[in-house]
């Protein structure tokens, strides 16, 4: 993390600080405590639809404020205000006071202290700041590069139709409270999503690939319009898979019945987020909606996984699993309550050892906050994941190559990619984009059609046997908990080997 002195200052900082200070003074005259977070996002983006319609939006601006009023007896209310001016904020506070008056006492409510309360500045300055440097040439170059890749993959029989969605946004955040805390953060985030649709007559197949990271689009395409080698390679590979999928087949009933192992590529680890992450969010635990941790915070399932399972949420790790503070699509330096983000070890040695906390849940469970309290543009702050990753300890269970990992597998399937997942109390479901059949410890060359991977939370990690390749937060996505979207990733080693069990299931479309 940058030193406080090096961190950039948000634009219009003085005006925002003045408005927040005045609003909090207004609140403090009426309640014992209040805090506020104001988020402002400048975004430039390009959409290219399957129709070929291209939309370049060099400047979208959005922002909102969330104010929390804490009254006597633990009563509390949150209010979203659309503008960060004093009049709007004070009107919002006054409306919130009406709601606060209707709240019953909540003696268990409290907010854990904000660590390091005097540090003010966090973040990283944008390169080629899109507020100052016209991003249009880079956005258009990205669209042309994707078009060219699609054209290069088309043949007389097969048309490859690309879709592109890419953006870069500068996120500015202010957090302040009536105790004098004042913190800001500036982050730039870049995101690229490409869908390749392969069309041959009536048949269609598709793959989707995403990239997302702290920093701007310059990490994916340079000023001259050349894709980075890594991005170009992965896009071309996924384009070719889309074409191959036109001839893919589902696993037969006999194959499904005989499967001994699933091998999940790092792009297919959404179940770590959906099935294991959400049930260890302290607000879900407290509400009674976790199947693996009771409302009092005691694990209901122990062990949750095999002894080689370790899951950490925080900044994205390097290949060895060590967190790197400025890496990861889900990364921030402070959460929306002003708490510095720190890694939260959730599962170690197969046992649940921790939870993700906001200030409120940290107080209720008597622990330190972990920097997981986030909101979407003025919404209520709730416990959210950041980068949630399988980070195993080194050992014989962690090998270098896929070939080593497949050894001993009688009949299995290597699953790649997901178009999304969803979670229920008991388990999760995620689509798989494609797979490769494994027989007698080796890939057969058969490509397997898209399917649906389901996992029951209470047992799906019990048969994790081994890993291959470095850790990577490859699963770039958007979590929709509580109808609030938040950028997140999930990840792990390049491949995760899972024994077949009653806890996991793979099915195919009808």
């Amino acid at each position, binding site marked *: 993390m940058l030193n406080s002195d090096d961190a950039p200052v948000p634009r219009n900082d003085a005006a925002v600080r003045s408005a927040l200070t005045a609003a909090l003074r207004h609140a403090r005259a009426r309640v014992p405590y209040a805090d506020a977070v104001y988020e402002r996002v400048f975004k430039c983006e390009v959409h290219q639809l399957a129709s070929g319609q291209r939309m370049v939006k060099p*400047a979208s*601006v959005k922002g909102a404020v969330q104010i929390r009023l804490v009254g006597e007896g633990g009563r509390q209310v949150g*209010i*979203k205000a659309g503008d960060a001016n004093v009049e709007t904020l004070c009107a919002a506070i006054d409306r919130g006071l009406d709601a606060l008056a*209707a709240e019953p006492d909540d003696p268990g409510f409290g907010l854990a202290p904000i660590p390091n309360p005097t540090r003010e500045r966090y973040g990283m300055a944008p390169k080629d700041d899109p507020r100052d440097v016209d991003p249009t040439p880079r956005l258009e170059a990205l669209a042309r590069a994707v078009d060219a890749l699609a054209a290069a993959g088309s043949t007389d029989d097969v048309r490859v139709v690309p879709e592109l969605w890419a953006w870069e946004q500068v996120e500015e955040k202010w957090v302040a409270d009536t105790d004098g805390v004042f913190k800001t953060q500036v982050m730039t985030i870049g995101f690229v999503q490409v869908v390749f649709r392969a069309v041959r007559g009536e048949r269609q197949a598709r793959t989707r690939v995403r990239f997302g990271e702290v920093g701007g689009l310059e990490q994916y395409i340079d000023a001259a319009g050349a894709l980075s080698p890594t991005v170009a390679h992965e896009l071309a590979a996924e384009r070719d898979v889309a074409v191959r999928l036109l001839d893919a087949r589902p696993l037969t009933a006999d194959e499904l019945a005989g499967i001994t192992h699933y091998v999940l590529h790092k792009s297919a680890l959404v179940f770590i987020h959906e099935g294991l992450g959400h049930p260890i969010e302290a607000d879900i635990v407290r509400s009674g909606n976790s199947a693996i941790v009771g409302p009092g915070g005691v694990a209901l399932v122990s062990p949750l996984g095999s002894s080689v399972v370790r899951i950490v949420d925080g900044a994205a790790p390097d290949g060895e699993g060590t967190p790197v503070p400025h890496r990861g699509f889900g990364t921030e330096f402070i959460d929306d309550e002003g708490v510095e983000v720190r890694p939260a070890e959730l599962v170690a040695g197969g046992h649940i050892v921790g939870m993700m906390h906001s200030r409120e849940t940290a107080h209720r469970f008597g622990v330190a906050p972990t920097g997981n309290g986030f909101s979407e543009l003025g919404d209520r702050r709730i416990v959210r994941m950041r980068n949630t990753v399988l980070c195993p300890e080194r050992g014989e269970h962690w090998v270098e190559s896929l070939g080593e990992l497949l050894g001993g597998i009688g009949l299995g399937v290597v699953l790649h990619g997901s178009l999304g997942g969803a979670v229920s109390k008991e388990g999760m479901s995620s689509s798989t984009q494609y797979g490769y059949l494994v027989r007698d410890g080796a890939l057969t060359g058969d490509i397997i059609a898209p399917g649906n991977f389901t996992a029951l939370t209470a047992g799906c990690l019990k048969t994790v046997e081994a890993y291959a390749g470095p850790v990577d937060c490859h699963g770039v996505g958007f979590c929709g908990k509580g109808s609030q979207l938040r950028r997140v990733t999930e990840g792990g080693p390049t491949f995760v080997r899972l024994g077949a069990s009653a806890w996991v299931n793979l099915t195919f479309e*009808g």
Partner: protein
Amino acid sequence: MTSMNTAFASVRALAEAVRARVAHVTDDVEVRVERADQVAYVIEGRALIPELECDAWRVAMRARRGGRLAIAATTGSSVDDAAGALLRALSAAQPDALEDFAALHETPPDGRGWDDAAAAMIDRPAQVRALAASMADAARAASPGAELVLEGGLKVGRTWRAMATARGATVLSASTVGSAFLMVDGNEWDSLAGTAAPTEHGLRALGRELIVGLPPREVTVAEWLGGPKEVTVLIDPRLLESLLRALFLERVGLDRVVSGLSNAAVGDVVGAPIFSLVDDTGAAASLAGGVIDHEGVIGQRKTVVERGVLRTLLADRRSAKVAWGGASTGNGFRLPLMAEDASEAPVRVGMGHLDVPAGNTPRMKLVPGRTVVLTDLLGVHSANRSTGAFNNPVQGGVALEDGVPVARLKAGAWSATGNFHTMLRTLSGVSAERLHTGTASLPWVAAPVRLS
């Protein structure tokens, strides 16, 4: 409280100010402004958590210059921010088939979609809280011996809108929303939604009937059906709506046809003869109906499917121009492609209020013998939009014996696989009862699904 006149004046002023600011450098401009307030109470277990929203602004803008289209969006009430974003967007404008924006006609706010009682509740959060509590209390009272894990909430909101283009009047509209959702044990759920204020009677009934309607016993696929098999199931109206919007739209949206992603054509047989579908973008008292769509086209009622035969595709202004050289059906909506606000999203073809006429058979008698009613599937958004195929875990459903609920479907133990387009063509029953979901009026239907 924000008065109606003050609110309308504020959204009109912003829309017209942005239009004026860019008029001299554009051929045409379209500005859509929303201003919204909301009071919600979220149920998380025993907790009831207030969420208030005051003066949330959204400004969605498009402009044309020299045959190119520029797009921008902002939140906030700042004319400078909005006009500045649109002026910057002009430098990035792209060639586009859309030749102009709608010429808007003076359309006085007609009160459709607005409920004074709902609007007033936003200034009485204690009343909203009491209603949310009564819904949860009713659920708990219906099962006095058990500790139910409840989640859900109650929301009331009001929104004022103004839309202006370079030609014609500024169209003003306003709407309210009242909605409630309740889920028990993370699986079974029920909801109500509409433009009217929720009533205590309705909310208590929702809470009570959700619990009372659940048999105590739960079954697996093996226990109920003897193992995986294809059976004729009852599709709940809420699941039917999800599948229509997620999968059937991909077939009947003219922009999808123009893109080559659908080969649907008027006259195609897309459903069983017992199935008809109406799309009504102007439906009164619906959260999916309005005076105009997001491109300023007046809401219309269209028969999309008549006795199984496709009668019209749904169009926005661009696809109508490209494919028909003619008029939009009023189905141009800003539909988020992924993680974006609606005001940022491109205009695409969407559905309005969906209306499927009722059949003659009581839903209890649609499927004799052993079957299930499916309320929801987990992750419908990940279904295959190209083919209509889906393959998802069941989230909410009940086992039926000759139409009578006898057991819950064990959570996490059921999956449903099928192809929605095939299902529509092979529907074997449409119920006499319909449910108003807030955005659709739909019956229960009987269709084949593989359960595993």
